[in-house]
């Protein structure tokens, strides 16, 4: 009885907050679009040059724009003092954390995944790789948000934790990047992509059941250190 209430109460609140400051979620997305539109201009408009790079560019841009949105994930709650109330009353904290991450993914990871086929066309992403790459992003962006959330929770007490956050989470993002890009390579070569997508799915499942606990622990420590 209490757990669904915790989850939906937090989901409603965070959803309302996200809708009231659309810029916070639009910025990473705009960054994603801008980086990708610069590639044909800066590298070459030739599709023969762009096609082999396309999946890598999409993934790197997705990774960096996710990183851009992470820093503020818990910062405002800490500054306002609502984090204290959440830690005090929100037991078990993982459900509120899950709701927060779900709202964040719906506002960043999901639109980014939906934009990928369109932006892929701009980068001359081979036809065969279009849907496998999109599927890879759909499975991979939740991992990025979950792992990134751990970094955001660990650095929430630091005044300028942005660089430290990047140093903490980028190494963890690398396996996701490698798997995501290899999906495109396999698709172009005409090989089955399902095994690699299954690896991404397994990674997402693992992150989903472990990261919220790590985040909840890190947030409790952040409250204790004042």
């Amino acid at each position, binding site marked *: 009885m209490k757990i669904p*209430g915790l989850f939906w*109460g937090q989901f409603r*609140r965070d959803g309302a907050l996200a809708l009231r400051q659309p810029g916070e979620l639009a910025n990473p997305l705009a960054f994603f679009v801008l980086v990708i539109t610069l590639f044909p201009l800066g590298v070459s408009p030739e599709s023969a040059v762009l096609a082999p790079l396309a999946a890598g560019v999409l993934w790197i841009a997705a990774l960096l724009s996710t990183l851009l949105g992470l820093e503020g994930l818990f910062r405002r709650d800490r500054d*306002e003092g609502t984090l*204290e*109330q959440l830690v005090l009353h929100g037991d078990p904290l993982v459900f509120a954390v899950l709701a927060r991450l779900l709202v964040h993914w719906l506002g960043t990871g999901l639109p980014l995944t939906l934009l990928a086929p369109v932006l892929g066309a701009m980068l001359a992403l081979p036809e065969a790789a279009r849907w496998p790459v999109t599927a890879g992003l759909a499975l991979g962006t939740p991992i990025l948000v979950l792992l990134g959330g751990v970094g955001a929770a660990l650095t929430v007490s630091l005044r300028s934790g942005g660089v430290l956050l990047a140093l903490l989470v980028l190494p963890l993002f690398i396996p996701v990047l490698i798997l995501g890009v290899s999906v495109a390579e396999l698709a172009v070569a005409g090989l089955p992509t399902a095994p690699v997508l299954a690896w991404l799915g397994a990674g997402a499942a693992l992150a989903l059941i472990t990261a919220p606990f790590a985040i909840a622990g890190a947030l409790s420590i952040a409250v*204790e250190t004042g």
Partner: protein
Amino acid sequence: MDTPLLTVRQLRCERDDRVLFADLSFAVARGAALQLRGPNGAGKTTLLRILAGFHPDYEGEVSRAPGPLAYLGHRPALSGLLTAEENLAHYLSLTAPGTAVSEITDALERVGLAGYEDVPCQALSAGQQRRVSLARLPLLGIAAPLWLLDEPFTALDDRGIALVTTLLAEHQAAGGGAIFTTHQPLAPRPGLETLWLGLEGAP
């Protein structure tokens, strides 16, 4: 019914190599209120944070009766972009899920903010934000037997201070207890005790 809501024995806390308090022992019984006084930096907020469980770095024993706790820190813990009603609805989803929305309206009316339900909290004055924060107390009432309030009178006008005093008195009459820090001492009344920190045997 006779066990105190909170018992503190031989509490000692150091911060930055400075002893804030040592050998501190007190208890808060049902129906009692304790005002913590002392100069800035005496450790009043730290003591409240220890009692709330936010500050594990202490020696001694703190035992609290089971049951939820109302803790209002020196920040109002409100999201500026959300309305008073939304902020309180989120608080209720944490503390008492399933509470009717009409109770939020009643609580806001109680703290003198009827008609402000749909105003984003960032558009409210500091005193009004403090009142929204305080509306949590009538919402929880005796469901949270122990109230820990850090500077509840900050930014409040005379009527606001009278309101908090009434809320405290009602809570005590219902069998609850409270500890609050303040620089504006309340008039002595039965059930209200004062604990000084940082000044030995203060005035």
